[in-house]
């Protein structure tokens, strides 16, 4: 399996590459009044409206300074998911979702022995596992759990 990695304040995270529709530069975001602080707002990608999720806020680290750059990842929607992804049981939302990250790193081809389950002391439900590479570890996260938690939170409020 191939993973797409990105960084949030120097930490590396990964999601399956097949869940990615496209990487792109940051574009102007329209703020949504009253939305959760983890939602930056809405963007228009070639006529489709997508919700932008701020990964820094999700990870509870300080916001980006004005001179720090960012990049965006557009996730595949359920209808766009290729057969191989469905075979792997990957989940996709019906609506387009964009992740706002510090920087997109690379496409990593996963060897089977590299992935470990999340250590017990990690409480965050969206952490799916830890990937060990020659240069260090990175965290596999589940967008579904991340967004589900976000939605629950919204419902509660």
């Amino acid at each position, binding site marked *: 399996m*191939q993973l*797409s990695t990105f960084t949030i304040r120097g930490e590396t995270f990964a999601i399956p*590459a*097949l869940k*990615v529709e*496209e*990487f*792109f*530069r940051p574009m102007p975001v329209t703020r949504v009044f009253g939305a959760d602080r983890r939602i930056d707002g809405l963007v228009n990608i070639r006529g489709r409206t997508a919700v932008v999720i701020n990964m820094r806020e999700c990870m509870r680290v300080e916001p980006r300074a004005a001179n720090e*750059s960012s*990049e965006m990842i557009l996730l595949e929607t359920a209808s766009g998911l*290729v*057969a*191989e992804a469905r075979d792997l049981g990957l989940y996709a939302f019906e609506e387009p979702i964009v992740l706002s990250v510090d920087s*997109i790193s*690379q*496409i990593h081809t996963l060897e089977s022995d590299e992935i470990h389950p999340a250590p017990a002391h990690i409480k965050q439900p969206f952490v799916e596992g830890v990937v060990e590479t020659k240069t260090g570890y990175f965290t596999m996260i589940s967008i579904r759990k991340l967004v589900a938690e976000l939605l629950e939170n919204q419902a509660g409020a």
Partner: protein
Amino acid sequence: MITEQTTENKFSIFNALITNDHREFYEKIINELIGISPICNQGKCTAAAISENATEQEQITDLMGRVETFAAELHDGTKNLFDQFYLAKEDFCRSIYCTTAYIKVNLIDRTLLERTCDVRWWAMETAFVDCLERINKISSKLDNMLSELNEYLDASKAAFEVPTLETNWTMKDVSKYVDDVREFGKRKLDLMFNSAVFKEFQSKTDVLAEQLGKGKSQEGTLAMLQKVLKNLQEVHERVAIACSRLEDVRSSYTLYRDLVITTPDGIVVANANPDTRSAVLGATVKTESWFKRASSASESSQYVIEKTNDSIVDSANSLVFSTLLFSLGNAEAKPIGLMGAFFDLEDEARIILDDYMPRSEDGDTQDGWFSFFTDENGSVVGSSDRNIIAIGEQAHLPRRHRKLKPGGTISSYANIEGNNSAVFSAMSDGYLDFAGLGWSSHLVVPTGDIFASEANCQVNGISPDELMRSKLIPEINKDTYVKVQDDKQSIKLISLNGIVFASKLGKRGVALGPVFEQITETGDFATSKMEELLREMAFGELRLNLQTLETFSKQAIDLIDRNLFERSAAIRWWATDQYFWKALTEPTEENLQSAARRLSDINSSYSMYRNLVLSNRMGRIVAASTPELIPDLKEARVADHPWFTKAMKSKSIGEYAVQDVGTTELERNGRSTLIYSGAVRQNGLRNGEVIGVLGSLFDWVTESGKILRTCLPKDKNGKRIQGCIAFYANRDFEVIETSDASAIPLGSIPDLPAEHRELASGQSASGVLRFGNSVYIMGSSRSKGYREYLGLGWSAHILRPLF
């Protein structure tokens, strides 16, 4: 000897200026980028092979097309970047080194201006005028006297040859003694100016007089002998006084090789250098060009400057400042003589030319670096290496460097004495009311030193990214930096999207993977190399800026040292003035008034003194040039002031004392001054008892402020760069003058880094300074004094803001 080279304005890898490092660098980037095209073609072929779906194929082909466009853009970008790199460096070096060349010729102009003041001032010295008046008078009578004497001698001789009752016949023959004396009759000049000859004459005369005394009726001859002796005696006394005054001048102003007073027809009657005196006095300078020019100059021209290196007075390379002397208060009359001051050009040029030159480890100037002056005809008048650029020869310079306009600068590449060099020239535009001599200053720098690699350059206290954002970096470089980072991102996103796209094709897409990986790698390589080059550029810019600030701080401290040297020379000389020792010896109302008038005369010929004061040995001010500036003149007591006590303790003339910048009771409103002082001695004698002190209150605030402002950095168009600060600190690092009192207040002690505090005399340093919330770069230089003026341990600091 020289081949002029033209500068390519567009980047070419074949330009000789491009360093080997950069050539390698450039080739690597270009090779990588050239490799992109086949990869993209391979990608397009692969797309056709793996998919029959037209949309899919188009998507891949489109991606490949975008990669190719970026590669081409990067290719151009790299060329532009190198272009920018070399042009920026050239530009910067041109500004630094042309400024340095100009500073050098400007230093000469400033010194020469002071010299023109000197010679005009000395021309009014009574001792010289008195001496010339008497000598001219005696000299004109002496021919007659000597021939009359000879007649008497002949008569005496004859009288002794014929023994009569009147003569003592036992002393039949005095002819030997008469002849001994008679011989001197043709040696008028020797008798007047050669003390050995005069002594010999005296002793021969004594012997003859004794012999004649034994005879009878010799009174006429004896009286004539006495008359000649008396007149000659007076000449020698006057000459001794004039010589002694000239020596006083020379021991106060050490930049003269000699000073001479001549009669209108060129006979040297007095000089300042005791070592050459016996050869110089009585000699004639009638045929020397400086004398001819000075004596034929119109009487209204105050001085004449002429180069010489073969004068009978001194054979070294000198500039003679000469002026006509007139009877005091009678400038319309015919000149009574002429004064010539031999300024030590060789030594002065050496001091200036050796400065601002990089040294190798053994302390010698680095090879390939030359600094020299040429006169209005293009011949070399001073050289940092006279074995290669010989004095008196025509300088081997490109034509345009020989045709500068006053104040103009120029630079070009040329082959100078076998080295590929850059030549920077600046022509003098004089200083204040001194028009200059039309000289030019040239600085030769090896090309390799200008374009030396900055790759390993590091400056403590600043990161490359911070530096990249600073004001130092030209907008064009910042823009390029942003563009490179942008390209880097574009390439990355294109290839990552490509890989994701390929992975979605499943097994079919596997073949595309390596294509995109290759693109990522190439893109990363090219952009990171370009970033490296931009950082190197930034550090190069920083290093040159630091060098500029060092140059300016050095100029600031040199200018103040030279200015203060002049003050120390002037006070030494004035302290010997007869008006002052007369007033102190006999403090009558009349004498005190003449002393005060003299002080005021002196002060009115200079602009840099607040006041000149004369104190008696008890520390009471008895005369002042500007008494109204002193808050309470009658009550003013200076007995415990450092300028007074130090001068009272001095051993001989040629010594001075100084009181560092600070407030004094002699100034209203607590204004800061710097006080120079010299002891006034009994009868103006060299080792006479100290009978009082002459003090000069230097207008520190005005003068130092003026100099600091001239040393503030300017941009290419000569406009002052905003936010720069210049200040002087004393030996305790207390600020004694500042161009920006709100940022660096007077009297404060700024927290300077150790390498800026612990400078040895004459040393410079530069670096990054964090000061409150601001970041500056700073250049600092410690005083090295000038000639025997040791300086006061001060330092000059120039700051330029980074943000």
